[in-house]
């Protein structure tokens, strides 16, 4: 998802490196019928953007998951959640 978000930000002419985009991720593994299964993945982004780009970055965060092949591949079995904070430099 981070790579896809990077692409969505690049399309809006928002640079993502160096050290402008990162994410903290939690994958929740629960006992489901006696098996340890991944049931939910939660992604929290941190994005640094140039002045005036905050709204575009928030829009990219909002919609990017639809274009993420990894997330779309697993979301039928694992709930995917995400949010992000955007700071203008």
């Amino acid at each position, binding site marked *: 998802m981070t790579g896809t978000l990077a692409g969505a930000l690049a399309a809006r002419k928002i640079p993502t490196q160096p050290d402008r985009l*990162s994410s903290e991720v939690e994958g929740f593994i629960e006992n489901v019928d006696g098996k340890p299964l991944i049931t939910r993945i939660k992604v929290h982004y941190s994005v640094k953007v140039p002045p005036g780009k905050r709204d575009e970055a928030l829009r990219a965060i909002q919609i990017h998951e639809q274009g993420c092949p990894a997330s779309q591949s697993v979301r039928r079995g694992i709930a995917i959640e995400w949010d992000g904070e955007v700071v203008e430099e």
Partner: protein
Amino acid sequence: MGDLIHVSKVRIVKDKGPVRRAYIEKFPDPVRYGVHGGIKKFYGVEPEEELPTTLDHIVAAVAG
């Protein structure tokens, strides 16, 4: 759903081009993701360094 057994914690850092690093909690060496093969062609990118994609890692993890 069921009782929580474990929370997998990972930090992802975006590098140049399609390259990302994933730091899995308690393990100092990152797993690196990028593009190659059909995925590289699909996205029309030419990376400085070819690396396994996140999809490769999903496949490997399921099979592993």
